């Protein structure tokens, strides 16, 4: 079976600066795959390119057997690929419910209300404060909203960009366990993280990025026990 998402020799440039220098990786259905690496490694750029917000300079992106590197961003969402962007990027002056409904913007069916309820079940706090402007939420609550919003498009593949950024350890645990729940419910997840330990514990497969290149790959367990990774990212020597 071919992988759900396949990225091949991807290069992305901002003007003359090449941020991603020919990376290849794949995500199989039902898996949690993580990209880890330091600041500026090209993780966010990769996600933004997959979701169509940036255009690749070279290489190909295939989602469920279809090339998507030329497809406009709003059509990519319709194909079943959702992106929860770095820094959460919720709409601060819209209510929680309006934020969630925007996640379902690309859909036009009658089950949006059911999914709204599903999001409230996943994160009860969203249901309690559904009419509150989202800008009044704390960072963790905003992250829940961002994830709930991304799920509203009923994605086959969910891309999360640093969901643990700026969160308390407790909240981070909560978010990571939600990622696990979503996988068990059948959503494939591509997770970008700086918190390598938390991400690798969860991941079926991981890739380590360094200045635009993949330097290591393996299962989550392999990477977690690899000496190189331990030294570089887990703060052990």
């Amino acid at each position, binding site marked *: 079976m071919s992988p759900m998402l396949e990225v091949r020799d991807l290069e992305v440039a901002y003007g003359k600066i090449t941020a991603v220098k020919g990376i290849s990786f794949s995500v199989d259905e039902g898996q949690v795959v993580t990209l880890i690496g330091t600041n500026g490694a090209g993780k966010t750029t990769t996600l933004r390119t997959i*979701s169509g*917000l940036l255009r690749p300079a070279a290489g190909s992106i295939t989602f469920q057997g279809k090339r998507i590197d030329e497809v*406009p*961003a*709003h059509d*990519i*969402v*319709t194909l079943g690929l959702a*992106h929860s*962007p770095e820094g959460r*990027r*919720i*709409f*601060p*002056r*819209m*209510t929680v*419910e*309006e934020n969630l*409904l*925007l*996640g379902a*913007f*690309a859909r036009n069916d009658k089950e949006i209300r059911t999914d709204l309820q599903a999001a409230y079940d996943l994160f009860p706090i969203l249901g309690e404060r559904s*009419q*509150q*402007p989202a*800008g*009044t939420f704390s960072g963790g609550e905003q992250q829940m909203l961002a994830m709930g*919003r991304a799920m509203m*498009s009923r994605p086959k593949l969910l891309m999360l960009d640093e969901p643990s950024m700026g969160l308390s350890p407790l909240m981070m645990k909560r978010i990571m366990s939600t990622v696990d729940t979503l996988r068990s419910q059948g959503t494939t997840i591509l997770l970008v993280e700086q918190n390598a330990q938390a991400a690798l514990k969860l991941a079926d497969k991981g890739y380590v990025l360094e200045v635009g290149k993949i330097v290591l790959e393996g299962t989550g367990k392999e990477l977690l026990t690899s000496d190189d990774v331990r030294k570089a990212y887990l703060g052990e020597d």
Partner: protein
Amino acid sequence: MRYALPTLSDETRAKHAAKGWPLALLGSALLLVSGLLSWSYDDRILGDISIRFWPVGVQIMAMVLGALGVAFALMDRGPLRRVGNWLDVALGLRALSTGVLVFVALVLAAIATEAGGLVNVNEGGWIALVGALLMFVGSRFVPQRELGQMHSARIPGWAEILVIALSMAAVLFLAAYLLNQDDAWLFVLGLAFIIALSMGLARSGFFTWFGHVAQRHKHVLTLAAFAVAFLFPFTQNGSDANMSIATQVLIFAATAIGLNIVVGLAGLLDLGYIAFLGSGAYIGAMMSNSAFATIGWKPPFLVTMLIGAIVASIFGLIIGSPTLRVSGDYLAIVTLAFGEIFRLAMFNLDGNNGPKLTNGPNGIPGIPDLQIGSFNFGDTHNVFGIPLGRFSNYYFILLLLIGFIILVFTRLNNSRIGRGWVAIREDERAAEAMGVNVFGLKLLAFAGGAFLAGLAGTIKAHQDSAVSPDQYLFLESAFLLAAVVLGGMGTIAGVLIGATILKLMPEKLRFFSEYRLLLFGLLLVLMMRFRPEGLVASRRRQLEFHDEDESLAEEVEDWHLEDVR
């Protein structure tokens, strides 16, 4: 963050609290009584204000303001306490008294200039001044009190509807009264009265409460507003003078609401919107039965209307598709240029420099009145014995048009598309990541706005009976934008008010016409300083300007909860 002028410290206020309230009550009562007295020896000015126990014009205004002051005072500490425990009467009283002081001072100034000196002021005028001063000083010392919850302040449904009906009736009465004032002083005083009244009501929170009520009875409010607008021509006794102004206000308002879709909902700055109105008007003129019309085909008017609107939206597409892909500033510049290009093109398409379409600077005059079926818009019709002239006819068709445009506006605002526009305004990249077709939605707003302006334009051509390039100056676009910003971006009521103010003031204050631009400039600067969200603020816009205000965030939540219920 709320801007406020320097106020007394809480300690000083507490020290004199006992004296403040009686002073304010006494002042209000004096003002109320003064209306029954004679204000001037001269019986020729401001309507006859020299007779005792026969209040007219400004005296009635003073009595209304006084009565409101008394009511506020009694609500603070008196028999009416339970009625308005959710009204912040202390703040209301302070704002009201400031307005009253200005109003009374203006009345005295009017008497002095009209009759020659302050000697002509009679006891009533002086008592009113004393009352206003007492109110002003006393109200500063009235402390604010604990307020009841606004959204739990419920009165029976029928009473709320009655409040809406009465407010609407008051609006109709005031509008008719103001329009009928040929005396510039009376017009100015009427405005000062309205400002004083609204200041008091606004600061006390009455309008916020009214907003909640309106939210609960949306349809009643809309119907009442339309009923009032519909009844207006019947108050004019067939006089065309005011109806001519009223139709101009309506055209201006219809166009401004169209622009509000582009600016207020989609957040696109359009500085050449008047060109779309012009496209419609020129199409209407070219296809009319005028002897100077340049197109031989004379379809029925409804077809012409549609063609005018479609041509305008095609222009919108042509301008929008290359520029909407880039950021906002470019759009502003391109639309500014388009407005000028449109005017110059109309100026030059006279047969010498291009196809003969517009007769150049002469324009297309002599456009006959509209004729729909057997109904000719030039004729006077009698309804219930009240003659309704040419302008009344146009007024009614424009009212229909405005109704249609408002319907489009609200449907869009509350739809998935409207939500997409808000998201684009908030965070364009995030919206894109959510699957919002950013370019498509912007183009829809732009072309849709142009379509509505085109519709209005075709009617305008007939109502003005002529089109020429100099009707479509950049200044007109600027005024439209000013109406939207002044009234409140993204709201209907605000833009209606803004359009009325901007169109009515120059008509009624002709002596001021040279300083018109200066006045508007000053007005806009003051608005941006003290109330950037406009006269009537949409709740979301308010959040955009006052991000840190937590109580405002709570208010927005209440407002949404109201909607859900």
